[in-house]
């Protein structure tokens, strides 16, 4: 087989930028991601199809509609082998259990070995050390992710009384003060101190946005009984979340918080009333009523806020939407493989040679020689019946192999349909690879 070398102009490196759009809607303690309704499974009838709660993204989307069942089967064994009985036998003899239960779900595992690898759930060194070598460490699927809201009444009072999530962001907030003064932890004019303000922290995992939230695309909406009472946008693209609507609403034009685009946090401080209608919005408040404000935005987003915890049915009048675009970068390699005139016109497929010919010329302990006069098959199609077309050299190209400098095959590009190449034809195949 002959190899064709890529020239410098045949390989291009590019970065593909994408802006994945995310939309969350929060209502009655539930989150809906990209308008996806809650789906109850057929087999997993008591749970969700994806085995991840509403509003959660399921990594890999494994275990679709699979209930958790104790089958008592052992993976790799027949139905006559009981898992429980086998475990009992192994433990009685002091043998390391190295087999797995079939619980009707896909789950990962690794064996403890010298590489010292483990899952994050086995984070503590002591936990890991308790396992013998060869022991099986398992985890579970799906891994899921969603937005989280945190209502913080005491951001930082003292070294013994503080919210760790807020404190972890303090340096970053001051760092971004060059973008906007509203990031600053404390300010004298106008006066504020985030350490003592009531804060509303919304955390957005990076799986939803990639490398950063795209500035200018954030939209936070507060609905009361389905009517819009406030909207925040980062229209200046500098992280300030400015109330832009509805027109003439209280606080319109004011900055209600800031966005940390790269880190995926929204920190809201706006405490002005968006309406005079009072709602129960704070978990554990015993039904205390408050006017809607930005510090209550997103109540119900994995923050233990629901009708029971707030102590009032008025909570269901509130609903919220959060929309933004992310930013992802995917590096791509584009390779042009050329099949020039008079080249790439032979196939190593055994069917390329006419059937019934003697293959070997001579063979012995020292020599192996194939016949050089074997005939290729004529694959030229004739337009007429009972008439064979004249022989022409032609091949059907079905794949392009990519090799490294040591001639190791490192990739194969397969065509959707084989391409007919005659001697006078010339083709260039464009191969694109995401890396």
């Amino acid at each position, binding site marked *: 087989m002959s190899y064709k070398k890529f020239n410098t102009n045949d390989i291009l490196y590019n970065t593909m930028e994408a802006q994945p759009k995310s939309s969350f809607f929060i209502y009655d303690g539930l989150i809906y991601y990209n308008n996806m309704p809650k789906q109850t499974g057929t087999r997993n009838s008591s749970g969700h199809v994806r085995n991840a709660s509403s509003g959660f993204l399921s990594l890999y989307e494994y275990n679709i509609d699979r209930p958790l069942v104790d089958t008592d089967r052992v993976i790799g*064994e027949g139905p006559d082998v009981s898992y429980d009985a086998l475990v009992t036998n192994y433990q009685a003899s002091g043998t390391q259990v190295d087999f797995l239960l079939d619980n009707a779900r896909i789950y*990962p595992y690794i064996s403890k070995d010298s*590489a010292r690898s483990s899952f994050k759930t086995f984070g503590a060194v002591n936990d890991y050390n308790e396992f013998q070598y060869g022991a099986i460490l398992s985890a579970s699927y799906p891994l899921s992710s969603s937005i989280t809201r945190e209502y913080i009444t005491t951001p930082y009072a003292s070294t013994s009384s503080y919210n760790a999530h807020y404190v972890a962001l303090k340096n970053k907030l001051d760092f971004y003060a060059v973008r906007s003064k509203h990031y600053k932890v404390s300010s004298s004019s106008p006066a504020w101190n985030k350490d003592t303000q009531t804060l509303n922290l919304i955390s957005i995992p990076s799986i939803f946005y990639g490398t950063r939230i795209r500035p200018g695309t954030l939209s936070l909406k507060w609905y009361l009984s389905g009517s819009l009472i406030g909207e925040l946008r980062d229209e200046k693209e500098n992280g300030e979340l400015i109330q832009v609507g509805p027109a003439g609403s209280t606080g319109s034009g004011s900055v209600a918080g800031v966005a940390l685009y790269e880190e995926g946090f929204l920190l809201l401080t706006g405490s002005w009333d968006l309406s005079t209608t009072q709602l129960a919005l704070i978990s554990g408040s015993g039904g205390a009523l408050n006017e809607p404000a930005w510090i209550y935005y997103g109540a119900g987003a994995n923050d233990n806020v629901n009708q029971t915890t707030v102590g009032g049915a008025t909570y269901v009048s509130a609903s919220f939407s959060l929309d933004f675009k992310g930013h992802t970068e995917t590096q791509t390699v584009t390779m042009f493989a050329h099949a020039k005139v008079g080249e790439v016109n032979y196939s190593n497929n055994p069917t390329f040679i006419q059937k019934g010919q003697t293959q070997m010329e001579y063979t012995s302990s020292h020599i192996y020689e194939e016949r050089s006069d074997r005939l290729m098959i004529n694959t030229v199609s004739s337009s007429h019946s009972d008439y064979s077309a004249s022989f022409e050299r032609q091949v059907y190209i079905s794949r392009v192999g990519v090799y490294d400098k040591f001639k190791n095959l490192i990739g194969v590009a397969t065509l959707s349909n084989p391409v007919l190449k005659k001697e006078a034809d010339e083709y260039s195949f464009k191969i694109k690879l995401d890396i």
Partner: protein
Amino acid sequence: MAVQNYENIDINSDVSTTRTLLHEVIPITGTILSGAYGTWPNDTNIKNYSHGMFQSVYDYPYLSSSANHIFDLTVGFDETSPLSASAATQNTKKINLYNQFSQLLLGYTGSTTDGVRKFESDLTLDGTGTMKDVFFINFARLLTKDQIKKGTFSLTVGTGAFGSAFAGTKTLYDVSASNTGETTNTFGGDYGVLFESGSSNAHGVLFYQAGIAVVSSSIFSGVAQFDSGTYGYRTVAESLQSSSISGTCDMLRHRIQNLSYNNTTEINSKIYFCRVPHNKFNYSSNPTYLSGSKIRVKEVATDPPVSYITTIGLYNSANELLATAKLSEPLRKDPTQELILRVRLDY
């Protein structure tokens, strides 16, 4: 701004490579294959194609965006099989499928008369123990990942009459295969033999890297009612010969009680041992490290300098930052301590 103080990594003594095998348990129970979504054989998680050469099995109705492709099912026989006849339904397609799989997985014999190898129920491709009438189960790469873990495959099929298929069962498993032996390497990678549970009878082979199980129809020998009886009860041989490919696949799905295996993903890692000498990295360039031009963590001037290491930056020879490693919690560093931080990079 991070400390611009570089410590060279000795590629001979400070860098090591390891490989970790991550496995996943893949159970595929019979209820996914027939009867869970719609009524057999018209299950909504089963996709048939107009070309009729195979059918695809999904874990959920395939029109849903949630559905994952589990595997493809098809059948085939060799042209020298007694089942091969011009009157057989889809005869050419079944022969072509057998040849296509055997070419890809086994290669050629070198003979000019019958060049394509045949599947055999043993590890020696010597022409004995050939399996000429087979089912192909082609698992999706999503589930097999790098390869199926050797010695973990099991397939339980019902061998009862059609109406009570699981009145009797047989289990096939690759009991003898392991990473150290009892496999044969071919074009399609390693394969192991599928033995019947409790006996030495072999009824198929499993290609680990390709993720393809080749199951001989002999597993159903003696089953008088292999199919549903729509055209009169047929044996497996009669079904393979006279039913369409998708029709025979439907019958097989009806009889799969349990199917499970473990997959393998290789994770290659490079470990960098980052050495922190006692007399270095005791200072921070973080703006908060100073308060009024004095080191914040020192009470009096004679106190030793103290820093807290939170991040390790890996740089190339041009001092360009390539990667950062974060510690789970800051690590206290002062001149009395010398540390080695182990940074692992998976790829």
